[in-house]
């Protein structure tokens, strides 16, 4: 039993910290801390900074521009970046299509697409969910019909995160209706500029625009954009869903957010004393802190057990459930801490450059939108119900 970092890991952590203190623009971290929206350019800026250091796709093989980091190094990196409110690395290119191409793509596909992920030439989005196929992904209907050296795609995707910025989509399509539903699915790379694609925004209950519907009408996709074999897409899709979950609990981000919450509870006064001394709030805060401390260790245990191979484990379903619950509880306490000042809604204030006067304490401005927006955490990316099903089968063997 040893819960300390090795000297090498300590040195690595210092290296990450130094890098962050030198290279992370305060302009960006300020926005993150204030829950303001990053622009497309700002997200790309951070990717470029990481790529310049060679740390963007840190879990890729070294020969393709990865780092060769251990699981523990990746955990340290993710935690340290979150703690200083660095933007998160968008997963669509680096953590989703990248690993699929690395494992299943042709040599030509790797050479063509992987460098463009690193240098920011492509912004990928994920074409998985459809209106009738959420948790039941295999029931998807968007069709691709072979026509000479093209596929002709018709149908609709939904919940497509940041599709408004994307120029490429990796997309599950149905190429056969025979046999089991899973056996007729293929994995296509689609240029979003192709005629026949329309992206429509979906406004979230919080007022945010993050996700979209994407409609396909006779969209012609070159056959060379098929990944792997026709009708084998399900295998690649599943690989993507279970890959790269070292950060699934979001412990670093929760630690950072909890730190903010604790500061607020110390300074915000209620009934003449700090909120942190209100018995019920103090108890909520303490239970949350204990849960988070436990989660940190649970997360590390799973990582160490997974070892150098970073094998996806069913245990990550536990991390997903409790990790999102913790984050949602932080949001919940933030909103409770704001009292009546959780009610005003000034969407302009969520954008950079807003110079208005806040209503109530500045931190209170985004608490409610944040609370509502983060309800998505337990829904998207495999709902917590789906995670419980995974635990049931893989761990409990029921």
């Amino acid at each position: 039993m040893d819960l300390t970092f090795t000297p090498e890991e300590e040195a690595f952590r210092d290296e990450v910290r130094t890098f962050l203190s030198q290279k992370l623009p305060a302009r960006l971290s300020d926005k993150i801390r204030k829950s303001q929206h990053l622009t497309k350019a700002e997200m790309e800026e951070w990717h470029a900074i990481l790529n310049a250091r060679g740390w963007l796709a840190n879990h890729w093989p070294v020969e393709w521009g990865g780092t060769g980091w251990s699981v523990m190094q990746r955990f340290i990196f993710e935690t340290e970046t979150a703690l200083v409110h660095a933007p998160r690395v968008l997963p669509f290119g680096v953590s989703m299509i990248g690993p699929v191409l690395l494992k299943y793509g042709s040599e030509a596909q790797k050479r063509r697409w992987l460098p463009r992920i690193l240098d920011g030439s492509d912004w990928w989005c994920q074409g998985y969910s459809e209106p009738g196929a959420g948790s039941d992904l295999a029931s998807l209907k968007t069709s691709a019909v072979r026509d000479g050296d093209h596929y002709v795609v018709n149908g609709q995707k939904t919940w497509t995160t940041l599709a408004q910025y994307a120029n490429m989509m990796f997309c599950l399509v149905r190429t056969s209706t025979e046999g089991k539903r899973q056996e007729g699915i293929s994995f296509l790379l689609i240029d979003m500029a192709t005629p026949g694609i329309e992206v429509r925004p979906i406004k979230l209950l919080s007022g945010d625009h993050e996700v979209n519907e994407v409609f396909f009408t006779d969209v012609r996709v070159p056959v060379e954009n098929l990944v792997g074999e026709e009708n084998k897409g399900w295998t690649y899709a599943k690989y993507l869903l279970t890959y790269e979950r070292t950060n699934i609990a979001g412990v670093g981000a929760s630690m950072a957010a909890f730190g903010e919450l604790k500061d607020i509870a110390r300074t915000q006064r209620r009934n003449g004393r700090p909120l942190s001394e209100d018995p019920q709030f103090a108890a909520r805060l303490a239970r949350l802190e204990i849960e988070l401390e436990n989660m940190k260790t649970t997360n590390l245990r799973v990582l160490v057990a997974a070892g150098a191979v970073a094998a996806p484990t069913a245990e990550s379903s536990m991390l997903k459930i409790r990790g999102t619950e913790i984050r949602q509880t932080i949001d919940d306490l933030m909103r409770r801490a704001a009292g009546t000042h959780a009610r005003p809604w000034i969407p302009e204030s969520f954008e950079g450059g807003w110079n208005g006067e806040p209503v109530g304490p500045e931190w209170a401005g985004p608490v409610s939108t944040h609370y509502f927006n983060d309800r998505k955490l337990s829904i998207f990316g495999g709902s917590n119900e789906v995670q419980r099903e995974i635990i049931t089968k893989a761990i409990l063997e029921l």
Partner: protein
Amino acid sequence: MDFSLGEDRQMLADSLRRFLADKVPFSVRKTAAFEGAGWSRDIWGQLAELGAIGALFDEGVGGFGGSPFDVAVVFGEIGRGLLTGPWLAALQAGQVLGAAGRTDDLAALIDGTAVITYAEEEADTWFDPAAITTRATAQGDRWVLDGAKTVVAYAGSADRLLVVARADAGLSTFLVERDAPGMTVRDYLLVDGGSAGDVTFAATPATLVGEPGHAGPVIEAARALGLVALAWEAVAVMDALRDQTLDYLRTRKQFGIPIGKFQALQHRMATMALEIEQARSAAINAADRYIGTRVERERAASAAKATIGKAGSLAAEEAIQMHGGIGMTWELAMSHYAKRLVMIGHELGDEDHHLARYIELGHELEQAEA
């Protein structure tokens, strides 16, 4: 023992429900709630004609209702239709006006000609009137106010403000005209629709309402009635969330069957339904005990707010979760009901506030009994 609303109240409920269903379908509501000042004065006027405002007040002061169960009916329908507007503020302001015998002002409120909002909360009061710092100073037979109020309902579109301020004699209430000199209003929308504003006073002329220094018990009672109103509104919102979620569970299919056939969701829905019935009982209790001793009234009001706070978070979060992605969208009425429910938790004191208050009042009760 009788848990029916009774014929008159049922008629009022039916007429409000029909009106809102016909005139304020959800698409209209949603637009109204997030544009301009976040409400429709036109609808307000029509509801005044239907008696919705008058039902909040006693016949003795010019209303045609005023029992807590009348308040319950009106706020139940507001909740069901997710209507925005200065309903709660009018209820509290009107109670204060009525208690002071200002029947002319109240008449204008009741017939919809004057919108009178209610300004008690300040940035640091946290629903404790003892912490109010807005000053009222007598200048001859006139009064002026200095200070600031926060999140005052519809401050920008009200005709007058009923303001709670501290005079030398203690807490007092005042009417302030919307265009009174020295007053600024900064307006903003609210997360769940509608609007509110931060208001400042600098030597702002004001008209005293009631006796100076005697406002404490009046505003406490008005708040208790406000809590009854919010409790009934919340229960109606929860009913809507439950029904919308059940509809969704019955129709939405995954893996070829309606997701309502999944036992884990069924059992969670059973829990949600049970919590809603308990919340309804709490709302009934709060209305019933309003006519009682102060401690009984306040205990039941705080018990109801603590109950709907807890049940409300559960109902809102479960409704969104069971809807999945679609539950996250602005498009769906459900998500707005969920937002309203959570935001009710932030009005007139939250779950923890009222649990603490319930405990404190319990100690008072014991000391009184001992």
